[in-house]
């Protein structure tokens, strides 16, 4: 019987041929924790009687969610992480290095066919590189750090066949928002989303990362794609390691298959306070905006900053809007400086903050005020997500956010993109 991508990766990592709903203990290739989750994992590691990590080359901690530290409580937890990583001899990416979900792919240690767990729900991002990567809690992470293994129920797969090519000024973010709105926030619970079709092939690896990143917003355990020449070229910048790309069999079994034609898709916006509360930008155009955010593990990569800069270059943002930009990593930041992107953004009125999660999780870097509207390239618009439950968060592409920052209100970016 044929296998899906996730069935193949879990088979190769558990030494047996497995199918959906089997329960397996699998070998893990890489393990990541961030500053919101690692402190509890350290406590669980000690509680489990852990002494050393299973392989210090296959483990990393990242300080990105509240970086640099905004208060003494966070500082104490950061210190705990630094001391633990130093004592166990594995890598810790400290403040300013960037968002974990940009850094782990850039590390070159993760690629096609890899199995990765991370104590962050958006770990599913590396599905764009044909890796099965998934978010876990701190105790699962601790078990992985000790044993190099984790138990899995092999997920059923949900195949998204995406025909056609996206129109101008419509991006991967619009596409994934549309899909989430269509299947809803629990439409793929415990499933592996497999994205395929002409539209996926046409996307850059960065766009694919946006698609994979938000698989969790429909409840999925993974958001997987096949590897192609674009994948290998992207990886070649960071490593000469060889990976084992995985394609689904022609007779693989999918629990659900949905087909879409994306060629007439419009820019999409997720309205407060649900990621699946999605509509075409026209339905909310004119909504006043007080803060605009470009960055995060969803849309803080070079391509995203370039799209925003192309709209903002030579213009000024609206006088009543704050625009916050957080590059996804130091590498992205440096690349963007070399290209003049940062200059264009700052001249337009952007405040650039430390590479990392920026204001997305509500710990620092731009907590909105009561009654304010925020438009953001992030992946979640839950009430209180950015630190104030009386603010309203809209999610959109970097182009829509940039256009909205100029106008001071939600704006269709198509008038700015030729």
């Amino acid at each position: 019987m044929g296998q899906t991508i996730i069935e193949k990766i879990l088979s190769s990592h558990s030494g047996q041929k497995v199918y959906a709903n089997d329960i397996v203990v699998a070998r893990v290739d890489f393990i990541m924790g961030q500053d919101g989750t690692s402190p509890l994992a350290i406590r669980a590691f000690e509680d489990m009687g852990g002494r050393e990590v299973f392989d210090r080359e296959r483990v990393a901690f990242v300080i990105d969610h509240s970086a640099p530290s905004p208060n003494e409580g966070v500082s104490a937890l950061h210190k705990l992480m630094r001391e633990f990583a130093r004592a166990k001899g594995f890598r810790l990416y400290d403040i300013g290095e960037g968002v974990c979900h940009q850094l782990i792919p850039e590390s070159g240690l993760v690629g096609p066919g890899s199995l990765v767990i991370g104590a962050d729900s958006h770990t599913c991002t590396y599905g764009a590189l044909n890796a099965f990567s998934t978010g876990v809690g701190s105790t699962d992470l601790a078990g992985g750090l000790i044993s190099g293994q984790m138990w899995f129920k092999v997920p059923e797969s949900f195949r998204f066949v995406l025909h056609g090519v996206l129109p101008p000024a419509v991006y991967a973010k619009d596409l994934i928002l549309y899909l989430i709105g269509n299947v809803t926030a629990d439409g793929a619970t415990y499933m592996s989303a497999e994205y395929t079709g002409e539209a996926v092939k046409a996307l850059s690896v960065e766009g694919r990362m946006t698609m994979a990143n938000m698989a969790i917003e429909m409840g999925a355990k993974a958001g997987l794609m096949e590897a192609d020449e674009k994948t290998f070229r992207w990886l070649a910048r960071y490593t000469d390691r060889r990976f084992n790309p995985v394609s689904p069999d022609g007779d693989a079994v999918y629990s659900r298959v949905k087909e879409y034609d994306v060629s007439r898709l419009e820019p999409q916006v997720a309205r407060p306070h649900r990621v699946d509360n999605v509509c075409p930008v026209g339905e909310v155009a004119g909504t006043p905006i007080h803060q605009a955010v470009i960055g995060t593990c969803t849309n803080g990569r070079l391509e995203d900053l370039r799209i925003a800069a192309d709209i903002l270059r030579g213009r000024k943002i609206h006088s009543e809007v704050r625009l916050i930009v957080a590059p996804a990593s130091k590498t992205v930041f440096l690349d963007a400086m070399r290209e003049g992107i940062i200059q264009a953004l700052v001249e337009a009125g952007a405040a650039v903050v430390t590479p990392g999660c920026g204001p997305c999780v509500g710990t620092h870097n731009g907590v909105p005020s009561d009654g304010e509207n925020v438009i953001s390239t992030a992946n979640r618009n839950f009430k209180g997500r950015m630190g104030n439950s009386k603010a309203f968060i809209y999610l959109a592409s970097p182009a829509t956010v940039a256009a909205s920052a100029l106008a001071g209100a939600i704006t269709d970016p198509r008038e700015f993109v030729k």
Partner: protein
Amino acid sequence: MKFHGKAHKFGDDVNTDYIISGKYKFKTLDMNELARHVMEDLDPDFHRKVAPGDFIVAGSNFGCGSSREQAPLAIKYANVSAVLAKSFARIFYRNCINTGLPVVECNTDLIEAGDDLEVDLAGGVIKNLTRGVDLPVKPLPGVMIKILNDGGLAAHFRKHGGFNID
């Protein structure tokens, strides 16, 4: 394990930011402190209303969103005995088992806010004493029962020195 308490009712898609906001969870490992803010953005008085043994009762997709294990821990430290929902998001569900917070899938339409409930996990029965109805419960997968019976994943590791789920 048998619990008795009142139902505190919530809707669908209660995410982990609502269970415990990011603005608190990054600051401390003191779960008693986090328990004072549990469900705060949905019901600011929740931690005062809840009595030891009470239940959180919700619709579908409870615990969606982030992987923060502070979410089940904050619920547990608020003295909630179990969460009953039509369905759970997967990372949250695993985290509950790993940290020893009982989670039960059942038809929560048959429970109203304030109902008096008796939950027998071993027997697989929920009795709604207020309404005089018994709710069937979807059983946990065997691996999860094994980890729960060991007292969570940390205790499972201490007992077996690693995974022992066959």
